[in-house]
């Protein structure tokens, strides 16, 4: 699961039947501190998130199990982040040498 910021939405009338009634949102990928990497993708919303929210999403086949209709999606928002606590930064430092 990866963090992202909700940047926008997509409307599509013609879509796979299993996606009827589902929201498609544009995500900007971030790190766990919320800094955007510049990459973006579209994800189906399984939790009711909104514009600007800090969320996490799953990719690949695991995204399609987030919804009971098992739609053909490769990204799904599965949680809205309330907070992140990092006890150390993953800076590539040696833990033992």
């Amino acid at each position: 699961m990866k963090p992202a910021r909700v940047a926008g939405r997509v409307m599509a009338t013609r879509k796979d039947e299993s996606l009827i009634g589902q929201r498609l949102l544009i995500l900007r990928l971030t790190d766990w501190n919320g800094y955007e990497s510049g990459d973006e993708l579209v994800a189906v919303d399984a939790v009711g998130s909104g514009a600007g929210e800090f969320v996490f999403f799953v990719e690949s086949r695991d995204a399609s199990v987030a919804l009971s209709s098992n739609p053909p999606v490769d990204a799904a928002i599965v949680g809205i982040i309330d907070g992140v606590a990092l006890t150390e930064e993953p800076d590539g430092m040696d833990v033992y040498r």
Partner: protein
Amino acid sequence: MKFARVIGTVVATQKDDGISHRKMLLIQPISSQLNPTGDTHVAIDAVGAGFDEIVLFASGSSARQTVTTKDTPCDCVIMAIVDLIEIDGNIVYDKSKQVL
């Protein structure tokens, strides 16, 4: 999913039985600002998309989750035709306002 523009069709007479009678389209991935990004893909069309339309495609094993692609050798499927893109509160694409 990523955005893409349909830039052509692909015809292949000899192909795996699993994808016979499936429409294959050539798509160019684009950013949400509609700029081309990355390599073109061949996708199976599950929604009836046409030339120059902006679509959404899904990749990987998720691509086999449509009725059209169930149990087929397919790793990229067009699963929606985009009507409107709104990003940061601005509408960057509205299909109904496009000049044909």
